[in-house]
């Protein structure tokens, strides 16, 4: 796959169809892969990588890259194409200036899950027929591939590319995922249990803004949390209220726009399951206003900028589920 991608990228660079290529660059170790822009065949040959760790969603870089002179080639996994569609819909990217090659999606690996097994000093990770062979400073370790899958891949919603100019490999289908299970589990808890759960999680927040900055839906020119005139700006949560508020407002601002790409949870240095907040909104929207998948298209009206005269009342929140 990696070879095919490099080959095609080189062709498109060579014939002038594109000026730049957005992909992933190999790092110091097996897993520390950085999204990167490649401008020449040499750079591609040297550093371009596509493997089990290339999980980063690179679509957000298009906000900037698509506005530069000349067309940009981007390799998008199925989940990433939803993000691009959403960005296109909101006029945040210039789709005409982007050449999308759809590539197969995950499941990708989560190095944290490997490390959580106590495996350290990792020198290389090889996938040998769905058993990971991990060479470390302390000898070789093995673990099943399935136990090291990124959470966002484990509950993959779709293998379908919703936008692309060409495909390498085959297109898949929208999947019947179990992504709302944890949301439902929380919904079934008591309010006190939910409160305790979220307090434990959100009190870990160090307000590094990684979730916001990686989020393809968070592309505001100036975020309200960075704007001293917004009334909610702050750099660190001084009180549990501010921990809650940041995440409530952020989830609300992306409600109906979040494609559930899962990057927020992937990048959270404190392992807060932030995607659950977004999924809660998605689940509510689906059940209250009809199935809606942000980024599935570029024209539909987002649930929060739409309404029907017979929408349910807000009191539905009081009427359902456990207290």
């Amino acid at each position, binding site marked *: 796959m990696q070879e095919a991608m490099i080959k095609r990228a080189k062709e498109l660079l060579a014939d002038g169809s594109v000026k730049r290529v957005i992909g992933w660059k190999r790092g110091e170790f097996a897993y520390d892969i950085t999204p990167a822009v490649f401008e020449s065949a040499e750079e591609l040959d040297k550093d371009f990588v596509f493997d089990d760790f290339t999980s980063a969603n690179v679509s957000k870089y298009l906000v900037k890259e698509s506005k530069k002179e000349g067309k940009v080639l981007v390799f998008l996994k199925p989940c990433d194409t939803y993000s691009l569609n959403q960005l296109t819909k909101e006029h945040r990217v210039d789709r005409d200036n982007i050449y999308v090659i759809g590539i197969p999606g995950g499941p990708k690996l989560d190095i944290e899950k490997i490390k959580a097994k106590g495996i350290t000093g990792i020198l290389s990770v090889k996938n040998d027929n769905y058993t990971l062979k991990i060479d470390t400073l302390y000898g070789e370790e093995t673990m099943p591939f399935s136990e090291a899958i990124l959470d966002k891949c484990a509950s993959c919603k779709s293998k379908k590319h919703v936008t692309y100019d060409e495909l390498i490999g085959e297109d898949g289908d929208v999947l019947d995922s179990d992504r709302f299970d944890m949301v439902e589990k929380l919904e079934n808890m008591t309010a006190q249990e939910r409160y305790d759960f979220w307090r434990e999680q959100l009190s870990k927040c160090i307000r590094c803004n990684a979730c916001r900055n990686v989020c393809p839906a968070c592309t505001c020119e100036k975020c309200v949390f*960075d704007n001293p005139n917004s009334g909610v700006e702050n750099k660190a949560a001084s009180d549990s209220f501010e921990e809650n508020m940041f995440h409530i407002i952020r989830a609300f601002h992306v409600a109906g726009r979040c494609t559930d790409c899962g990057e927020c949870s992937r990048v959270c240095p404190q392992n807060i399951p932030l995607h659950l907040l977004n999924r809660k909104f998605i689940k509510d929207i689906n059940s209250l206003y009809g199935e809606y998948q942000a980024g599935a298209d570029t024209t539909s009206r987002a649930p929060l900028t739409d309404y029907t005269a017979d929408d349910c009342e807000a009191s539905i929140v009081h009427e359902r589920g456990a207290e």
Partner: protein
Amino acid sequence: MLKISLSRLEELFAAIAEKQTLYIPSDRADGAAEFTKWEPGKALTQKLNTLRSAKDFFFPQTENIVDFKMEGKNIQVIDQRSEHEDFVIFGVRPCDARSFTILDKVFLSEPVDSFYKNRRDHGTVVTMACSRPAETCFCGTFGIDATEPEGDAACWSDGEDLFIKANNDKGQAFIDSISSLLEEGDTAKLDQVKAKTKEILSRLPLANLSTAAFGGDTLNEHFNSEKWAELSESCLGCGTCTFVCPTCQCYDIKDFNTGNGIKRFRCWDSCMYSDFTKMAHGNPRTSQLERFRQRFMHKLVYFPANNNGEFGCVGCGRCLSKCPISMNIVKVMKALEVK
């Protein structure tokens, strides 16, 4: 050297906690290790290091400085400084121990930061030597010997016993306070462990990373390097690296209007943020390239320039594992050192 059996750690912690607040690295529910207040039953983590550094103990993320109370048109100023209680941080790794030396250079040089000093004076740092370094470790680059940790007192484990030694008076006072639990022990096995650790340290992937190309006199060479554009192009501008970093010491001072008064507090800031050091005219570093460059230039050039060659990094590797896009100081150093 004095020692205590590892099986008696609980006893040791109880004895320390009896006299002052004790913090140890332990595992939280999500598996990550963090420094928490010790209470009976709480065990030392098996992880190499905590997710966040130990700098919070001396330089917390937010800290109330002064209050202004308003009654109608009258304003009253309330100083929030108070004497901190004594505490012990146990199990600080050699890299984090060095970070306090670096923070001291910032906060304890004139004008002395009284909030920091207050905490520093009342805190005893008990370090723990490493025996199982990770691939992301590169403390050696900054002259830190992971087998000979700094701190007020230092500990080693040989698998059976915990050895302890004072590095200064404060450390000695600490050891004296628990001396009834300690006994003299043989370090032969410990020396083997140390030797093995040294051997592993020499085989680390980043063992050969060098600071030779950096330092206070390399400003012009690096500041204008063309490589910054490529290095910073995928930086998200988040503050993860800054906030997990044990040496990052920048803060902002802000006012919070409670409705009944103003709470003036300081909180960590990150040079990666667009509103960092914002002044009346705006932000001096307007592009992410400049902000990205600032962070690494500070650690590798400006800091040593102002601090007798001491670098602003301890090689703990936290930013290596936590950066959302895996860009970090190692990649920056390796890119810049190539002429």
